[in-house]
């Protein structure tokens, strides 16, 4: 048995002549929260639609829980819950009726509907027409619809879209809860790294249909090397001294010089060196390039 909830092998997908997904090798471990990151139009939604068999993938390229999707469509979909793009809700039905309709389709007890409404905090709006819901409420209802069948794998396409800060935190906590306590696997797409960073255990970064990075969140952190930022007077001469002393200057502005960080001791030595040579060091600190910039770098270079 495969340890991956989702595995794609050299997945390609075209809309006409346009390649949307290119040679994608996605590996989502069971029980993980997999942050699927990429700028708008990178191919995230297309990939999710392929994982739901809404878009036909070539044979033997997509495996869900180790099973090929095209030949196991119904069995696979039974284990998957999804929220794709903006939630698909029947506007003329109330929130509760939307959930009951889903219960009918899935052949599960209608009492599940109330349970889900409570879970996403929509109990009070249960009997309001969902067409009149705010964007955030629709999003919550969409999440409730995805969760109602108690699926092992959840595919959430930008689930916090349109939610207020409180709502974002709630969804975040819900995801952590589902993965840690209920052993669900969650693939959550986003174009905001900061959002993924707090919840994801694994990250995949996609741009222009290609996977540029895939690994654990720590592996992503390791990619971003710490730097030492030195604020100093007489930048020009200081830079000459630093370079002559064998340090590599990464970046130099009119206020500060940035060199790679190696250890606290080395930072101290460099500081002493500068002061002994008559420079005034106003600050010297370790800076980790944040993931947001790293993400921009990764996607920019593609």
């Amino acid at each position, binding site marked *: 048995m495969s340890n991956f909830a989702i595995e794609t092998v050299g997945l390609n997908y075209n809309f006409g002549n346009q390649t949307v997904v290119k040679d994608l090798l996605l590996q989502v471990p069971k029980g993980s929260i997999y942050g699927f990151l990429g700028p708008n139009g990178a191919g995230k939604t297309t990939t999710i639609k392929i994982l739901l068999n*809404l878009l036909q993938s070539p044979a033997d390229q997509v495996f869900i829980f180790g099973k090929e999707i095209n030949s196991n469509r119904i069995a696979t979909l039974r284990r998957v819950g*999804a929220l794709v793009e903006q939630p698909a809700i*029947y*506007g003329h039905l109330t929130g509760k009726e939307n959930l009951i309709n889903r219960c009918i389709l899935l052949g599960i007890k209608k009492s599940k509907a109330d349970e889900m409404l409570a879970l996403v905090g929509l109990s009070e709006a249960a009997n309001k027409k969902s067409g009149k819901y705010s964007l955030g409420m629709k999003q919550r209802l969409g999440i409730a619809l995805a969760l109602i069948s108690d699926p092992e794998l959840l595919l959430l396409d930008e689930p916090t879209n349109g939610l207020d800060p409180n709502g974002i935190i709630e969804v975040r906590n819900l995801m952590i809860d589902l993965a840690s306590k209920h052993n669900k696997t969650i693939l959550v797409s986003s174009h905001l790294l900061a959002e993924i960073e707090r919840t994801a255990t694994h990250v995949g970064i996609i741009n222009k249909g290609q996977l540029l990075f895939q690994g654990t969140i720590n592996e992503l952190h390791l990619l971003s090397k710490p730097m030492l930022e030195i604020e100093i007077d007489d930048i020009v001469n200081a830079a000459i001294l630093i370079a002559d002393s064998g340090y590599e200057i990464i970046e130099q502005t009119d206020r500060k010089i940035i060199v790679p960080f190696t250890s606290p001791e080395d930072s101290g030595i460099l500081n002493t060196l500068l002061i002994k040579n008559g420079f005034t060091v106003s600050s010297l600190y370790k800076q980790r390039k944040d993931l947001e910039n790293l993400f921009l770098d990764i996607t920019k270079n593609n």
Partner: protein
Amino acid sequence: MRSLYISLVSEFYKSRKTLAFWAAILLPVVICSLVSFGFYANSDKILKMGYPGLLLWAHYSGATLNVMGMLIMPFYVIFMAFSVNNIEHKNDTWKTLFAQPLNKFSIYAAKYLYAVLLIFICLALFAALTYGLGHLLQASVPKYTFNEYNPSTILFNSYAKLFLSSLGILSLQFILSLVWGDFLKPMGIGFVGTIMGIVTASLNWQYAYLIPYSLPTLALRITKVKSGGDPLAFDIFTKEVYTSLIYAAVLFVIGYLIVSKKSIK
């Protein structure tokens, strides 16, 4: 079978608060009531004609059937085909519908069957209301001769023909509404088709029966002509009905092929 059944139940659940569903009930109630009211209010004039039971029933049910068969029926069918599909287009719910663990044929067939069912309910109500209100008229205007003749066979045959001859339009419009999410294209084509159907049928063009839109009119025309003679003699399964059923079956299969290949964007 089970997934077909749950899809069908879900179709009912989704649409039970929409106009599409209520039209199936309101349309026969309104039209039959209006006709009956006319027969009640103008009973003096009608009684002067001195119709025997059979002719009185023919006039009374014909008043409804002609309006229905000529104009309303094709548009009603077009509207049904549209609204069953539009509920998904409008809410952008095709993607969730096809992401459920149900086979695609069930989802498609349930939608189609639901439209067929609504048309059936509508026409069955027409027949039942014509029968019932006719007897109510008899009770309120005792001089009428409705009680001299039992119209159940002629009513059954006429509406059965109307029902079967409209299935061709349904299948065609169903595909149009499935493929296009907007209102204008299927409605526009349906409108032009219906006009063409009426024109070709009334011009007695020999190939009119090949146009699905003219079939209800053609099917009813034969009913009308023969009902002057022996009204019980006409067949349900005439050329028009067969043509309609063939159209329905072929287009139903084509519709499924479209659905099974369709990528949900």
